[in-house]
């Protein structure tokens, strides 16, 4: 399979947020600003690339019956490594994303890709699939974060350009996450 195609599939045809609708918890919870959405997307992408690669390398060694527990341990290992790295080098990100970094373990995208792609394809193709799906997830989260930040805080990536009086606080709070994602999905449906 063409590697460029795998990446394109991950971003457009199999977009985890707008098409597959997986990993909704971090999507809604961490997109209060464009920066947070980007950070969460990149963190998930890093884990997904590593787990896809390792699981694909191990696919002939894992008995079929215990594959899910094996996958979960591999995923949890990489999430723990990432958690420690973020705590050490990016304490600000750790504070913003908080609980949702360890919760990458139960993000259905990661287990889903392990099962649907990495367990059937070569390690390099799986790594590329991790990049593609990760990029699709990152783009969706950043887009959601940008929309919510503009409407709710009048800023993009922290650069304010709308006076505070015109901000709609609702969009930074919980209901805004559901409503924004709902309308973004409606727009994507329309474009399809």
């Amino acid at each position, binding site marked *: 399979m063409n590697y460029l195609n795998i990446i394109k599939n991950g971003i457009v045809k199999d977009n985890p947020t707008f098409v597959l609708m997986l990993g909704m918890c971090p999507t809604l919870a961490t997109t209060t600003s464009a920066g947070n959405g980007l950070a969460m997307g990149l963190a998930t992408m890093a884990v997904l690339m590593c787990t896809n690669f390792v699981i694909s390398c191990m696919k002939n060694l894992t008995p079929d019956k215990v594959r899910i527990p094996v996958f979960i341990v591999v995923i949890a290992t990489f999430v*723990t490594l990432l958690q420690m790295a973020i705590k050490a080098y990016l304490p600000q990100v750790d504070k913003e994303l908080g609980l949702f970094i360890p919760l990458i373990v139960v993000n259905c995208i990661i287990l889903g890709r392990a099962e649907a792609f990495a367990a059937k394809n070569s390690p390099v193709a799986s790594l590329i699939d991790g990049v593609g799906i990760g990029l699709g997830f990152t783009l969706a989260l950043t887009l959601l974060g940008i929309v919510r930040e503009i409407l709710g805080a009048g800023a993009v990536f922290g650069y304010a350009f709308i006076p505070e009086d015109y901000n709609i606080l*609702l969009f930074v709070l919980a*209901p805004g996450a*559901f*409503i924004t994602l709902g309308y973004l*999905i409606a727009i994507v449906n329309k474009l399809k």
Partner: protein
Amino acid sequence: MEYLLIFISAIFVNNIVLAQFLGICPFLGVSKKIDTSLGMSAAVAFVMVLATLVTWLVQTYVLVPAHLEYLQTIAFILVIASLVQMIEIILKKVSPALYQALGIFLPLITTNCAVLGVAILVIQKEMNLGHSIMYAFSTAIGFGLALTVFAGIREQLALTDIPKGMRGMAIVLVTAGLLSLAFMGFSGVDGGLRILLGLD
């Protein structure tokens, strides 16, 4: 009195689904009918309380004394996965009727981030065992409440004529947003209750 505060605040003020965004997948996935949403809520309540109990004990008596706190994520997810598996086997043997009702929901719960989320949250908030169990129980009730109310709305929604682009997940998410907005009306109740109960 603290228990009452935890109870009210976890159900209404900091609702796990509508304010904290945990357990969104089952919230959107199994909320088409009230019956199934009740079954799911019961299964989640069962697993959440047990999982919090076991992970709290693992954290306090194994991980902390052995200075292995960094293994928290791996240890907790393994405990939860095996616990779910064990509950499934026990239920099948002991109470086939209950297994019939909850069986199909149990495997889904392993990847329900609300269970792992609550287990980690009670450790982060440094709650004692009693408070942790109460928190897990109330959170599960809050999850059940949100899920059942939402399922009721969706049953009605299925009968209405929705614009083409909004069909499917789009209208469901907007509805969830409105429900979340309604729950925001409870914000501040916990503060008032705290004063009322004389905890401050």
